[in-house]
């Protein structure tokens, strides 16, 4: 009899151990594939200590990025407005939400976000960290117009998600924090660093004379002077991720950074977007007012509008801009297009599973 008790106790103990082992399931670390130019030229990307990248977390985040259950009527996902084919931006000037309402800013492209060192996201820097940014579109009444309570319930009742969350975070009870963490993990893997110009910098190809001259126009303080805000061969992000008034308007219907800080000195300032992948991210500017790159270049050349907060780098504003020749404009466009990363927009790792 005593032997039986001992035997039963051992079996119980063993079962208990097995259950604990499952609880302690550890997701596998995900190693970002960092382009050589990035690791050579830039400081390390920002990966929050409380949300390290894991293979399970990234896979879950990808599934959630394309998940339409995040919207009230189950018709829209993050990818609806952040289309991979458009370098995760929207080809429409203003994205249309589930109720047919339009926003008032163009959806920003999504890539190289882990190198946004100040971690201020959106055109107006209104969200700190990718995790926080991901909270907003779900509950925004002109976007997905859903509540996080409903989203978590829908995902909790889903046949796959509880298991996937358990694998990614060790918790099968889904909440909004875990959802945004997973989406942020996936977004950090969206790395674009293999354009023709990257290959040129790596010594793998040559530029055309037009592209070469266009790069010189970009870098010449007496011509385009684009490099002060938009990076260079030594800053492969091609943005400073800071906020500038680039002379679009004399008066502001959208205050941009000023609306966030409440400081009139910030009125009309918006984040410098990266000039990578411009071939895929039209229309341009925070309000998508320009449909072509020619319009963008003409703006800086002749179209600058003065206002009190205009950035001092917008030189020659009294003459409308830097007055580029027709050839320099065409060559500048050729250079800008050399920063298009076709591999990025076609990467199966970033497409709908």
């Amino acid at each position, binding site marked *: 009899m005593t032997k039986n008790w001992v035997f039963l106790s051992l079996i119980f103990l063993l079962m208990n151990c097995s259950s604990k082992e499952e609880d302690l399931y550890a997701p596998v670390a995900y190693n970002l594939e960092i382009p050589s130019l990035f690791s050579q030229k830039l400081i390390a990307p920002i990966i929050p200590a409380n949300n390290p990248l894991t293979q399970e977390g990234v896979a879950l985040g990808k599934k959630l990025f394309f998940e339409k259950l995040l919207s009230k009527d189950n018709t829209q996902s993050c990818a609806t407005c952040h289309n991979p084919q458009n370098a995760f931006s929207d080809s429409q000037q203003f994205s249309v939400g589930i109720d047919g309402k339009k926003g008032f800013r163009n959806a920003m492209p999504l890539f190289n976000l882990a190198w946004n060192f100040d971690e201020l996201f959106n055109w107006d820097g209104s969200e700190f960290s990718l995790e926080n940014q991901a909270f907003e579109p779900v509950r925004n009444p002109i976007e997905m117009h859903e509540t996080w309570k409903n989203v978590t319930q829908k995902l909790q009742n889903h046949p796959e998600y509880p298991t996937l969350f358990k694998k990614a975070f060790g918790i099968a009870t889904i909440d909004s924090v875990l959802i945004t963490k997973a989406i942020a993990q996936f977004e950090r893997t969206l790395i674009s660093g293999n354009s023709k110009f990257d290959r040129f910098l790596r010594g793998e190809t040559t530029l055309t004379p037009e592209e070469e001259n266009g790069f*010189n126009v970009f870098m010449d*303080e*007496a011509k385009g002077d684009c490099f002060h805000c938009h990076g260079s*061969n030594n800053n492969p992000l091609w943005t400073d991720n800071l906020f500038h008034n680039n002379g679009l308007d004399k008066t502001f219907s959208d205050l941009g950074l000023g609306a966030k800080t409440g400081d009139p000195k910030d009125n009309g300032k918006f984040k410098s977007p990266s000039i990578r992948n411009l071939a895929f991210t039209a229309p341009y500017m925070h309000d998508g007012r320009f449909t072509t790159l020619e319009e963008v270049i003409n703006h800086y050349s002749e179209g600058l509008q003065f206002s009190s907060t205009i*950035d001092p*780098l917008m*030189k020659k504003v009294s003459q409308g801009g830097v007055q580029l020749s027709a050839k320099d404009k065409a060559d500048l466009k050729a250079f800008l297009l050399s920063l298009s990363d076709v591999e990025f927009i076609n990467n199966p790792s970033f497409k709908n599973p």
Partner: protein
Amino acid sequence: MKRIYVLIFLTFLFNSCEKKDCCVNFDPVNVTVKFTHNWDGIPINQNDFDNFKFTTENGELISIDLLRYVVSNVTIGQISKKYQLINVGENTGTEIVLNQVPKGNNFVKFRFGFADVDNVDGVYQDLNSTSFNVPMMMGGGYHYMQFDGKYKDSNNQDANFNYHTIRAVNMSNPMNLILEDTSFEVEIGTIEFSKNTTIEIKMNVAEWFKNPNLWDLNVLNTVLMPNFDAQKLMSENGRNVFSLGEISNE
């Protein structure tokens, strides 16, 4: 026996002295070099940015929108830090801590910008990440300072200035750039350190427009990077910008 006692006593005394001598003279201290900024004595802080509130020696009313610069080889005696970017508007990088500075007299100096030997294109990841580079067509390397703002021009209209200092470059022959190192060393002098200490280094921003070259922003305002002569003038004015402020002990 008495001799032995004397010998033991002397040995003890000698050891004791040696130990004391070591501790008194060679215990290191920590020194903080703190950069502050003023306009002819009026402190400049973040709230002063983007406001027309300072007047240059030549009479132009200006606003400061961006002011950031590099100091390199910040040296106290034998201890040094290679470089640091100071961003006045963001109030970052203004303090440089040098540890293990030996007690006693030490010479204090630093360089504004980078000497040619350190001004190597693209090698400093933190400066690349914040776009502080100089295009290769102008010799590459890094800015020494980016000082952007607005001024009231001769018609009292707002106009922009980009007072950017770099290694001077003559670009008249793009195939054969002529470069001149316009960074400069600032010698603060010898300071005696007996405790952990903070040294204030004051930058009088007004001096960039004053001495020895009276600066007329209506003439020299933008596109100064490829202007060889302007770079030399800025460098000359920079020699009068820094001075020693307060020295305080913990």
